[in-house]
């Protein structure tokens, strides 16, 4: 009997211990743990697709005494995305860190972060979620401060403190649920929670705590410096996965636990915050001077889009239309995960080649590394939401739903967000074309004036490009099975007549 759910968490934990114990062999040991972890996660996805929701009662006790791991379609989709992104990061990291003291420090924390992510996606227990959140937060802070540089440490100290406040708030909400319902199991709690002060306040506490962690506007202030100052593979993981994990939890709790009992005004509030995030994040990204800072602000904006789905989901009765829209939300989250990871991985290489990541001085680097630039371009297409990326499909469905439900105010927000995103993406891409002219008198730019570029092999460039291709082509053109997968999402309001 192989418990793939438990293995998705256990394998990276073993990898972490191994890389702690034998730092000299961190890379081979880390990769040796990474590959089976990805395999286990993909097996979970396959099982969910084939057989529906997968449950593993750890310790054999079952709820409410023991802890359940549970994988439904939603969990499986995010698990699959996270592990593929993590695989790309793992393949990229050795080349990126080669010869640096950071290599041995990176791997154990990275494997712990990975374990936390998988644990979080699969958790079916409210307190266990708290532990995975803390593991995620501490591992992320450690990774973010990996270089020990002042700016990085400062940003991550702030992240750590905000994260702690968030998880304490979350834990208070969990205590409230336990006090009222006497269970920590998510599904049981969902069955027993009724509309009332307990539901409202625990929703506010848990979601509020998670919003701090998922950097939803106006709680986003910690994110850009923390993500922009980390080493590129870490930024990729933080921006693509860690904040996404917090969003996933908000969505999951809302769908299963709170959606039916807290009413539409709470969802509307989430939507409003999301709208503000879309505009503010995109605006700041446009004004950013550094590529990684731009990418980090773009994360703030993209998270905003995800929260726009809440008021729409809240208004739809359970059924096909709602599942379709939920699929769009998940598609958006997945596409952003791949695209943002790709953008950070590519930005890291441009930074390596140019020695800096100031956008206005990146012409030589973008032209010396065309594969990387292609990766940036494709990731950019996905971030803007142009076809054929998955974002486009998702945005189309978001727009249609908003219009269909008469929630007009979101439409200009989406339009403005899209145009601002286009502006900041093409601010970067324009530099890829500025070159020595045949006519005219612009100063020629010599791609060879970028000595760092030669040291960057194709193997280091491919992970970023692959992720971008997934975001643009795979999720844009062949995303339909996602909705079949999500059909096995637990939605109690759907089960109840």
């Amino acid at each position: 009997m192989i418990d793939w759910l438990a293995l998705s968490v256990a394998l990276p934990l073993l990898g972490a211990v191994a890389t702690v114990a034998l730092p000299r062999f961190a890379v081979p040991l880390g990769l040796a743990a990474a590959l089976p972890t990805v395999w286990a996660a993909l097996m979970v996805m396959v099982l969910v697709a084939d057989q529906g929701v997968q449950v593993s009662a750890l310790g054999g006790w079952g709820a409410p005494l023991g802890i359940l791991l549970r994988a439904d379609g939603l969990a499986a989709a995010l698990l699959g995305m996270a592990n593929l992104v993590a695989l790309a990061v793992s393949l990229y990291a050795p080349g990126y860190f080669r010869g640096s003291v950071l290599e041995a420090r990176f791997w154990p924390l990275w494997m712990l972060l990975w374990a936390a992510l998988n644990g979080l996606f699969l958790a079916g227990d409210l307190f266990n979620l708290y532990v995975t959140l803390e593991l995620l937060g501490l591992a992320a802070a450690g990774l973010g401060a990996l270089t020990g540089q002042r700016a990085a440490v400062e940003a991550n100290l702030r992240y750590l403190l905000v994260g702690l406040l968030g998880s304490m708030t979350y834990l208070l909400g969990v205590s409230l649920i336990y006090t009222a319902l006497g269970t920590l199991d998510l599904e049981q709690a969902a069955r027993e929670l009724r509309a009332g002060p307990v539901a409202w306040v625990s929703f506010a506490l848990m979601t509020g705590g998670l919003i701090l962690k998922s950097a939803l506007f106006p709680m986003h202030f910690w994110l850009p410096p923390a993500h922009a100052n980390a080493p590129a593979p870490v930024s990729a993981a933080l921006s693509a996965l860690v904040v996404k994990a917090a969003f996933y939890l908000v969505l999951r709790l809302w769908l299963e636990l709170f959606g039916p009992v807290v009413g539409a005004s709470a969802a509307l509030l989430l939507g409003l915050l999301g709208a503000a995030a879309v505009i503010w994040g995109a605006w700041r990204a446009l004004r950013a001077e550094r590529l990684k800072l731009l990418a980090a602000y773009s994360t703030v904006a993209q998270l905003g889009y995800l929260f726009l789905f809440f008021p729409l989901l809240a208004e739809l009765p359970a059924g096909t239309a709602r599942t379709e829209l939920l699929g769009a939300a998940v598609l958006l989250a997945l596409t952003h995960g791949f695209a943002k990871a790709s953008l950070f991985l590519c930005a890291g290489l441009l930074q390596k080649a140019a020695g800096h990541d100031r956008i206005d001085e990146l012409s030589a680097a973008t032209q010396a590394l065309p594969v990387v630039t292609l990766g940036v371009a494709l990731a950019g297409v996905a971030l803007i939401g142009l076809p054929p990326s998955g974002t486009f499909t998702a945005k189309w469905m978001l727009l249609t739903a908003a219009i269909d439900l008469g929630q007009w105010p979101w439409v200009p927000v989406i339009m403005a967000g899209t145009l601002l995103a286009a502006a900041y993406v093409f601010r970067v891409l324009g530099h890829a074309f500025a070159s020595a002219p045949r006519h005219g008198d612009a100063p020629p730019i010599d791609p060879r004036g970028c000595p760092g570029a030669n040291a960057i092999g194709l193997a280091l460039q491919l992970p970023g490009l692959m992720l971008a291709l997934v975001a643009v082509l795979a999720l844009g053109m062949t995303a339909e099975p996602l909705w079949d997968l999500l059909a096995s999402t637990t939605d109690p309001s759907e089960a109840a007549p």
Partner: protein
Amino acid sequence: MSALLLALDGLLSISVVALAWATVTRREPRQAVILFIAFGLLLALVWARLRAPDVALAEAAIGAGLGGALMLAAARRALIQRDAAPSPAPPEEAGR
């Protein structure tokens, strides 16, 4: 008996909160941390009263003990540094 116990509970609760108040309002970091340690130990005592001896032990040893020791060391370092440098070090702006 019950009333007496209740009075004791009330008294304990009030002292815990009062001690916490003293802890969070103390400006001088070292004293704040020392108060925090005392607060933790008192809390451990209360938890023992609430029939949670395992947790009481853990709080005394880990929460108040090691956590306190860690923060105390940090407070001392801050003190040493401030004394060493005549111009005050920039404040540790951790929040916003």
